[in-house]
């Protein structure tokens, strides 16, 4: 037979297989694998992009390019030629004067039409400052200014008032209630004044050497953004700083990373489970085909022809199931996306084409990895078995089979995660888990057998008799139950821990620029209002001038180093370790004030810049140079929204230098009413409401959690598929056994009891093992992947053991019911 004929023959055989139900479980396993990988892929891709886009609110764009100098014209031209939306703003400090000649230092932002590209600017009419207008994306009209609530209060502005700004006079038309990218410059604490970019020149506000920040905002397709980022970095890295969503707010970055890890975890677990189901089903298929291949060989088919015949059927079923899986996966994500689109308040980006391809590849890799060797063995079955009925050579639990399975696992995980190390860890984890399941499973089955009384003899004898397949089944059950436990309990725990990581009483107000002589009074003021601060910290603004005695500004310095040298840092000093900080290297200094000039540096900052313990750093503050040795590295919980510093020194380094103080705290009441009178009582202080940023991070968490919950539904489906495949894998043996037992006079009741008990015992053992591993995995996930506190959950064990016993007993009974109620003569004939 030539190949075409062989394929046609395989196709006809497949139609018969499907009709006869031979390949139902395998087809289902493949379908679930492809559907779940596709749906998860589609879904995470779309949600991921939507989340990222929403996170873009923080920048008011997907990507921004910022410089202390006017951005080059060539840069604008290049960006205009790309399919990207763009807008600009320029920020600088200035002074405004109201009609009553009262002046105020302000942070001016001149914007072009289209700002913001992401997120919305919430405005209110000056006549009704408390009523938000429908959001829009246009700059103030020419001749108008928009001001924030702080300026409104400070200058007691009302409808019709004008403000002098530079050479121009503007009419105050609107009040800015919310500015999406305000959090970007949390320490730009002066009140906001927003004008149209067209008015900038006439106002003669910026001249050469002005302290202004020029920003180009961009949004559009990811690939284009990446290309734009690369272009700017390549051409203008010396003067322009590019910043994407992830480079921005550390809180948002952490939230995004975690959301992606959760979704990634969901898809990896799903594909592992689906892979296990495929492995079981294909092994079962190969074993079932041993008879047929021996007969085929007897009738004249060669081994290769039989192997082609068997594998072509598998390939064909994989194609058919993949197509169906892709359609189902696409429909599933469509429904989920529709459900979630409302939550995001925006249309989700269209699904990419990569997910169905990955879904299909997953099915083929799993099929080849787990199925190839059993199929080859089935094709090479001893042809004398047609006369002797001996299929002992078919046992595919060889080293080669295991190795192939592991390679397949690695490839599939790598396909999803694109992370070789993670894939290797997953493979090692699977090996360890299956080994433990195998060893302990076998021991436990023997123990149960030894302890069982007469009544359970039949069930435990069944377990013992089918020791090899019982252990395989047990491992599959344990894996399935473990996934279900991870989904149902660990997910909830982890998500709860994540939410708790940003407690309801996280600081939502920052107060900066408190003068040393105001600290005591301000602390008392807070106390009188019942406000508990996270501490009032000194802050010294300084520039870095030397590292290990070598000046930062030197001939060899890179542009990046020069930029760092120009930048002013906020340093603090303290005798004690700041709240929520943890020393990760070195030691904190003596708390009695006797410490020499020492520095404590934030770990990531130190690593990125190469500030080792023992290095010296020299800062210049208010014209005074001061040097200290790096004594330790600190881990800072940026998500806490508390006042944190990259560098904290011992008092000996900075005390005495001009400093201001900063604090943060949580207020329940309205920001404006809580802070009324503070500015008058403590002139110069600036208050900053960051409640909106917190709300945004929290809402991102909520949505990501919801997405994770939906995605885990597929994991659940894959878990059930494993259980189904495992139950079915022993069906042939059960048919033969129950036929024999029925023929020997066993009643329905006895057989039913035996089957239910056997599955219940398997389920309980599997549940116990699953609970052990689920706890271990939950611990390591919370420690190393999500960096969240771990909580031991007793329910994991209770549900694992009892739920496992009950669930597997019911599933096992339902799956084998047909066997039990088949008349013995039919069963015996089938057995033959």
């Amino acid at each position, binding site marked *: 037979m030539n190949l075409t004929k062989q394929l046609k023959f395989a196709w006809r055989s497949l139609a018969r297989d499907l009709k006869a139900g*031979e390949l139902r479980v395998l087809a289902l396993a493949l379908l679930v694998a492809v559907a779940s990988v596709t749906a998860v892929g589609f879904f995470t891709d779309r949600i991921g992009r939507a989340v990222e886009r929403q996170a873009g609110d923080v920048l008011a764009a997907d990507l921004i390019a910022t410089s202390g100098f006017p951005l080059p014209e060539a840069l604008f031209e290049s960006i205009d030629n790309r399919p990207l939306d763009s807008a600009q703003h320029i920020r600088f400090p200035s002074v405004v004067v109201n009609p009553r000649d009262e002046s105020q230092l302000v942070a001016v932002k001149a914007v072009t039409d289209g700002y913001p590209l992401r997120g919305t600017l919430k405005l209110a009419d000056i006549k009704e400052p408390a009523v938000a207008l429908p959001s829009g994306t246009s700059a103030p009209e020419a001749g108008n200014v928009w001001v924030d609530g702080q300026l409104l209060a400070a200058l007691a502005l009302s409808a019709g008032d004008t403000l002098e700004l530079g050479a121009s006079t503007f009419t105050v038309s609107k009040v800015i209630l919310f500015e999406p990218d305000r959090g970007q410059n949390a320490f730009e604490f002066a009140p906001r004044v927003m004008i149209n970019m067209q008015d900038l020149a006439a106002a003669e506000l910026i001249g050469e050497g002005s302290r202004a920040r020029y920003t180009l905002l961009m949004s559009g397709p990811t690939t284009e953004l990446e290309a734009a980022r690369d272009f700017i970095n390549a051409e203008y890295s010396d003067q322009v700083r590019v910043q994407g969503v992830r480079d921005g707010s550390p809180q948002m970055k952490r939230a995004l990373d975690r959301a992606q890890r959760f979704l990634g975890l969901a898809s990896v677990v799903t594909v592992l489970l689906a892979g296990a189901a495929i492995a079981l089903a294909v092994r079962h298929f190969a074993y079932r085909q041993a*008879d047929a291949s021996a007969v085929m*060989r*007897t*009738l*004249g088919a*060669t*081994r290769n022809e039989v192997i082609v015949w068997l594998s072509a059927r598998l390939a064909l079923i994989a194609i058919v199931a993949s197509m169906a899986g892709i359609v189902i996966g696409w429909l599933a994500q469509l429904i989920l996306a529709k459900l979630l689109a409302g939550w995001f308040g925006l249309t989700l980006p269209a699904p990419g084409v990569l997910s169905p391809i990955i879904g299909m590849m997953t099915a083929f890799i799993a099929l080849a990895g787990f199925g190839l060797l059993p199929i080859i063995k089935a094709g090479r079955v001893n042809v*004398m078995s047609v006369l002797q009925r001996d299929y002992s050579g078919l046992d595919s639990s060889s080293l080669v089979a295991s190795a192939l399975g592991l390679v397949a696992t690695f490839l599939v995980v790598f396909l999803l995660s694109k992370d070789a190390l993670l894939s290797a860890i997953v493979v090692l984890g699977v090996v360890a888990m299956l080994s433990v399941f195998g060893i302990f499973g076998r021991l436990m089955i023997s123990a149960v057998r030894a302890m069982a009384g007469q009544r359970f003899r039949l069930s435990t004898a069944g377990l013992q008799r089918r020791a090899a397949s019982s252990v395989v089944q047990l491992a599959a059950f344990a894996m399935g139950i473990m996934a279900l436990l991870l989904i149902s309990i660990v997910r909830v725990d982890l998500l709860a821990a994540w939410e708790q990581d940003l407690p309801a009483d996280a600081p939502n107000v920052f107060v900066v620029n408190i003068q040393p002589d105001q600290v005591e009074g301000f602390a008392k003021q807070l106390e009188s209002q019942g406000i508990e601060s996270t501490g009032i910290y000194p802050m010294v603004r300084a520039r870095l001038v030397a590292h290990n005695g070598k000046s930062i500004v030197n001939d060899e310095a890179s542009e990046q180093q020069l930029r760092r040298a120009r930048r002013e840092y906020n340093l603090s000093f303290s005798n004690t370790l700041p709240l929520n900080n943890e020393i990760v290297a070195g030691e904190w200094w003596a708390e009695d004030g006797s410490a020499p000039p020492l520095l404590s540096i934030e770990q990531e900052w130190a690593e990125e810049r190469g500030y080792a313990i023992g290095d010296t750093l020299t800062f210049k503050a208010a014209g005074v140079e001061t040097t200290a040795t790096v004594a330790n590295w600190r881990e800072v919980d940026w998500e806490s929204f508390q006042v944190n510093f990259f560098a904290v020194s011992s008092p000996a380094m900075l005390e005495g230098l001009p400093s201001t103080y900063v604090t943060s705290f949580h207020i329940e009441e309205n920001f404006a009413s809580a802070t009324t009178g503070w500015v008058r009582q403590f002139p110069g202080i600036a208050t900053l409401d960051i409640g909106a940023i917190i709300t945004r991070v929290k809402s991102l968490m909520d949505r990501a959690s919801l997405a994770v919950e939906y995605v885990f539904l597929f994991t659940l489906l894959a878990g059930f598929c494993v259980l189904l495949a495992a139950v079915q894998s022993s069906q042939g043996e059960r048919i033969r056994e129950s036929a024999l037992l029925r023929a020997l006079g066993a009643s329905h009741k006895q057989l039913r009891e035996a089957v239910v008990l056997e599955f219940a015992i398997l389920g309980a053992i599997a549940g116990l093992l699953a609970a052990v591993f689920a706890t271990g995995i939950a611990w390591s996930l919370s420690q190393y992947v999500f960096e969240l506190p771990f909580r031991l959950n007793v329910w994991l064990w209770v549900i694992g053991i009892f739920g496992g016993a009950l669930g597997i007993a019911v599933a096992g009974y339902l799956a084998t019911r047909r066997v039990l109620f088949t008349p013995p003569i039919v069963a015996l004939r089938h057995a033959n």
Partner: protein
Amino acid sequence: MTSQPQAIENSARDDNAGVVLSGQSIAKRVSGPDGNLTILHALDIDVQSGETVAIVGPSGSGKSTVLGILAGLDTPTEGRVELLGEPLSELDEDSRARLRAGKVGFVFQSFQLLPGLSALENVMLPLEITGDKDASVKASAMLEKVGLSERSGHLPLQLSGGEQQRVALARAFVTQPSVLFADEPTGNLDSETGDKVVELMFSLREQQGTSVVLVTHDDTLASRCDRTLRMGNGRLEAV
């Protein structure tokens, strides 16, 4: 299943006078827990074209092993087997399979029908292996000959033992084989059904001029063959 060797084609179809199967000094030893065990001792056998030969003997005497070796399903430890003029010992397993395709039929004690295939599809199987385009037509005609045309769509499980063996006979004869190997063809059937199956088998063999080598403990069945050989102590003796 691919192109047939021309020599086989000629030797199988030339006339009814030649030897279609010959075994010389066949020995089979297997390793067991107590060392090597000799199952067959230097057997000699020749089967002429169109001849029917029965091999009888007690259970475990090695009858099925001889059948397997003669059909090329197994290889002897020593000795030489020629099937349809081809030396089996010089062929690898796949070449032996190709030699059997369409030329050799089998009937087994446990029928060995593929459970997922209907009666018709089971009969089509050997024709599909040889790539016969008229597989369906020929198989239907063959099922009619064995009186099962109305059961052609049934799965093996839906057929009685006798019907299953008749399907197996249709499958064995559908390619008009030169040699039929039968392993206890009535072993799983009651005597009445067994008789009918035997009758059918001999009638089909008669029509096609097929040589038959059958293994049985049934002396009545053996007596219908041209020759009976008895297996004992690993040796074959003429009865």
